């Protein structure tokens, strides 16, 4: 597990506020604001799925992984530009999303002003009158303090609970 020092209560609070602000921004379709104010330009943003194998299977992790997201800043920007075209019929009428974040644990990294943050989340999406979908996920983040003293998301690895996606698509940020 995590062999690092946990952060102080004060830092823990700051980090939890960061995660909640992120969730609120994304729920409110403020993807551009999220990118420019909360994401580090050196971001690596990944959503990883792994095939289900027997416990004794020895194949390297990398060969078992498939990544619906493995994006740097430019690709996140590209995805947000797609939302900004206003041409996605899929998003009209608007869908409503609710991200609930919990089980937050934060630790000091070796680099000063860098923190490893673990969290769980549930995201629900409601659209087209009848649709009600939910995904459960875990995240391992690295946050870094920028020059202005605010926290920025430097890396995020998301693991979905489900192997076979049942929620139509995952075209949103977690």
């Amino acid at each position, binding site marked *: 597990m995590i062999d690092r020092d946990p952060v102080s209560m004060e830092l823990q609070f700051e980090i939890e506020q960061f995660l909640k602000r992120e969730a609120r921004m994304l729920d409110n379709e403020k993807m551009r604001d999220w990118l420019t104010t909360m994401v580090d330009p050196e971001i690596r943003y990944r959503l990883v799925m792994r095939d289900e194998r*027997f416990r004794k299977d020895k194949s390297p992790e990398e060969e078992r992984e498939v990544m619906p997201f493995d994006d740097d800043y430019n*690709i996140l920007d590209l*995805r947000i530009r797609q939302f900004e075209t206003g*041409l996605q019929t899929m998003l009209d009428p608007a869908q409503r999303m609710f991200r609930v974040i919990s089980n937050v644990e934060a630790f000091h990294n070796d680099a000063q002003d860098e923190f490893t943050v673990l969290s769980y989340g549930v995201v629900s999406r409601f659209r087209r009158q009848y649709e009600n979908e939910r995904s459960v996920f875990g995240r391992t983040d690295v946050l870094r303090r920028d020059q202005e003293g605010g926290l920025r998301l430097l890396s995020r690895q998301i693991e979905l609970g489900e192997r076979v996606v049942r929620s139509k698509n995952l075209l949103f940020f977690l």
Partner: protein
Amino acid sequence: MLNIEALVDKANGTQSRRIFWERDIYEQELERIFARCWLFLTHETQIPKYGDFFVTKMGEDEVVVARQKDGTIKAFLNQCRHRGMKLCMAEAGNARAFSCAYHGWAFGIDGDLKSVPCEEQVYGPYFDKSRWGLREVAQVESYKGFIFGCMDANAPPLAEYLGDAAWYMDIWAGVPGGIEFLGPPSRSIIKSNWKSPPENFIGDVYHVAWTHASALKAMVGEAPPQSSFAGEDAGFQVTTRYGHGLGLNWGPGPILMSPSCPDLFEWMERRAAEMVPIVGEKAASLFPRHWDATLFPNCSYLIGTYVFKAWHPVGPDQVEIMTWAFAEKDMPYELKQRIKVAAHRVFGPAGILESDDIDNLEYINLPNRGYVTRKGELNCQMGMGTEREDADFPGVLAHHLSEHGQRGFYRAWSDCMSSASWGELEAKSANWKQDLLRNKRAQGAE
């Protein structure tokens, strides 16, 4: 008996909405399409070593595809022969045997029943284990590394089933070194009928600039107008005897990979030149272009975007999608890693094009819930009358911006569904080309 002729009007290019919804039609599809046609199972590079296995579906029958000691490949129904429990609970891996979780019957990777707990005590000395091996898929063959299985022992060989579609596959799957699948598939289940996604991939050029306008605009600056796909110089569509088809666009192949794999443009051009002595100049000229294609009934691929998909039916109203990224084996490791990510970025579960498609695929089927809606017919007539033969390209061709490929898909569907056997299906489709071109003349005479 179902009246298939009333469900798909081959001459007029229309289909009844009922074929996307009704359970009795679906059950007949499982029998006459999925238990009869050659179905994609996996790629050789997914199970390279002895004991490697991959679990997939043939219709709703789950199968284990396994590499044998002698290098051949067998496939078995994924079920214990004792009380019928699902046998292998992993989706891939390497094994010498599978033990049933219920009572412990153990089957070798060759399908033989190897051991039965307390055998002699409870079944006596004469229990014949050789009678109770795993049920084997009747035919398994591989074409350029792509492994297919067929439940019907009377089906023609795979290469014959692929027919003219094999000529097109040779162009990209026949590269020196061959093709490699990159990692496991991403998987998702959507609420659509299994026919709708392969119909979209076989030749729905019409939707590209409309449905995907947002993705194209974000990627390449401006979405091309739908009309830019019209006209004879935009490309062409192909249909073949057993319903396989493709749409070829003369534009550059890797356009959707351009954000993180811009080097693919040069790679494809260079490879195209190297393919000239292997497949000929005309065939090689297709290599660096963008193609969408479906092999009837339920797998599709995109050339230039490096995506291969299988569409598994889950009842008449759901589809499980398996999506693989693929590369050429000879590509540098680092490029393969970028392709693996970039392919899923456009056509994976969070794909910026896939997501728009899936909303369409679900909402073209949901209205079928309505009894009156379901009695209606669907229009698939675009480009009728543009069918032609071409000295350079096999199959029957038609305009790029047409529904020629889709019509071929439903022609094959109709032929399969109205035939009680492979013999009947072969007889029915023997003159498919003449029938298609004759129908064109009849339409023109109207």
